């Protein structure tokens, strides 16, 4: 196992890092796995796997319930995990960190909270590059409340049309929901500016951070985000755990989402007095080992250093863009100036699905299809793309294999 302390000093030691991820040594169709589907989910380091195994081997108990030692220990671990998340995204207070099932649930919680205040004719702004998870909750809410969903367009390069956004902000706007990083194109949106503009109109902003959190340092206070959502599994932790960050002033006002065990101070059949955030929003026994694993994952990437990770991933992206652009007929979808390590492309007269099937035979995992961003695919007039999304355990040699694989696929499919 790589010593994370050593790595922090010497930037990215990819050979050592790869040893932390057991799955990277397996084969697919008899070939070494090349995993380029990190945008869908990331692989897990031993530090996370061991943390979860240790929890069930040595620490398992229900939290916030028992006076016995195990329960108290588990409660401390869970609350420490919350503090780790708080520190990681620079939230002002641990009570602003709510553990959820993932980004989708986090967004749905906020949409539910805005339900009763939304009136006919009110407007919610999203963008054309949103993942369906940051469209559907707002679309459903607008339909129900006869409100209007306004959409900020995307330029040919895959950047948000900021001038259009400014025009869409109006006294009718009740909320802006925007992604920090596009899952399909990798575009890094100027969320700080987006938030400042919204706040100038007294409009709160929810940021979908699912694709940002693995790639960059996120400071919710500096961004001044009202809500920030992300999923554990996209940042090297397990599935089923996610985070909703909300400013205290919003969380105090938010109605309950689900109620049940753990959310209360006192219960009688006449009246129930609820606990404060975050417990009020975490009904039932939470995903304890998921939270612990998330903290372990964040500690792991922090030990490597987010700047080191970002610098190395940018190097991979630049290398891949250069190599892939040499392939005849290949068009990159998303050429924003600021991009995370996501590379989406189409190849003239070849269906993305066909390329995905051939690459899979070569042991290369990419994502093909619409990436849950059908409006964006329509914008770029394509049925889907092939998406390679890179993590810090990927290598340039793997990108070479991807290029060879694409060339081979093109030859087979056009021949």
């Amino acid at each position, binding site marked *: 196992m790589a010593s994370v302390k050593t790595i922090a000093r010497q930037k990215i030691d990819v050979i050592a890092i790869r040893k932390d991820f057991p799955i990277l040594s397996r084969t697919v169709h008899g070939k070494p796995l090349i995993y380029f589907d990190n945008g869908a989910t990331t692989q897990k380091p031993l530090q996370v796997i061991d943390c979860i195994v240790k929890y069930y081997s040595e620490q398992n108990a229900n939290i916030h319930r028992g006076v016995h030692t195990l329960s108290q220990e588990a409660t401390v671990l869970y609350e420490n995990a919350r503090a780790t998340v708080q520190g990681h995204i620079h939230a002002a207070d641990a009570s602003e960190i709510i553990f959820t099932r993932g980004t989708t649930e986090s967004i749905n919680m906020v949409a539910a909270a805005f339900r009763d205040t939304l009136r006919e004719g009110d407007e919610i702004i999203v963008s054309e590059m949103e993942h369906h998870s940051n469209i559907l909750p707002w679309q459903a809410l607008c339909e129900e409340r006869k409100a209007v969903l306004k959409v900020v367009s995307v330029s040919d390069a895959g950047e948000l049309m900021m001038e259009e956004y400014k025009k869409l902000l109006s006294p009718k706007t009740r909320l802006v929901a925007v992604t920090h990083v596009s899952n399909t194109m990798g575009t890094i949106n100027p969320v700080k500016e987006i938030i400042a503009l919204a706040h100038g109109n007294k409009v709160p902003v929810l940021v979908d951070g699912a694709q940002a959190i693995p790639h960059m340092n996120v400071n919710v206070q500096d961004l001044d985000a009202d809500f920030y959502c992300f999923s554990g599994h996209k940042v090297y932790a397990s599935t089923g755990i996610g985070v909703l960050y909300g400013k205290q002033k919003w969380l105090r006002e938010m109605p309950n989402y689900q109620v049940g065990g753990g959310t209360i101070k006192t219960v009688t059949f006449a009246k129930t007095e609820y606990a404060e955030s975050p417990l009020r929003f975490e009904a039932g026994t939470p995903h304890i080992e998921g939270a612990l694993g998330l903290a372990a994952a964040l500690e792991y990437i922090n030990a490597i250093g987010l700047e080191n990770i970002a610098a190395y991933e940018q190097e991979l992206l630049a290398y891949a863009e250069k190599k892939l652009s040499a392939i005849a007929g290949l068009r990159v979808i998303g050429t924003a100036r600021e991009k995370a390590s996501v590379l989406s492309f189409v190849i003239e007269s070849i*269906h*993305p*699905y066909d390329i995905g099937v051939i690459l899979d*035979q070569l042991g290369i995992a990419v994502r093909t*299809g619409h990436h849950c961003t059908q409006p964006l695919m329509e914008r770029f007039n394509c049925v889907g793309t092939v998406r390679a999304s890179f993590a810090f355990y990927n290598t340039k040699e793997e990108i070479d294999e991807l290029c060879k694989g694409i060339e081979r696929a093109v030859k087979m499919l056009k021949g």
Partner: protein
Amino acid sequence: MSIADTEKEIIEEFSLFDDWMGKYEHIIEQGKSLPLIAEKYKTDDRLIKGCQSKVWLHSEVKNGRIVYTADSDAIITKGLVALVIRVLSGHTPDEIVNAKMEFISEIGLKEHLSPTRANGLVNMIKQMKLDALALKSKSV
């Protein structure tokens, strides 16, 4: 040729290839002899649901037997459709409904039957069987 005989023939054909490339090239080749659906039938109601690529299927009765035509915008999918049609087309509704379609696993394409593959091969076979059932009354 019976359904079982065609399946056997396909299994023998594929046994000639010892690597995946040959196999996939043969699938792609199969797509070229797919009985193409008439352009007028390429409508949304003839799209097979659940495919990442588009697959249009048209079924009709000729002399008591079901005849299928199809097309796809992805060429591997087109080849897979061609194989299935080669096996099922020209048979009676009862024969089609009872076909086991074991050749798909036999030729090492079992992965295409998994739901995550989303190429809709499973849905396609299901639709062909449903069409055969629906057309049964017209075939007698």
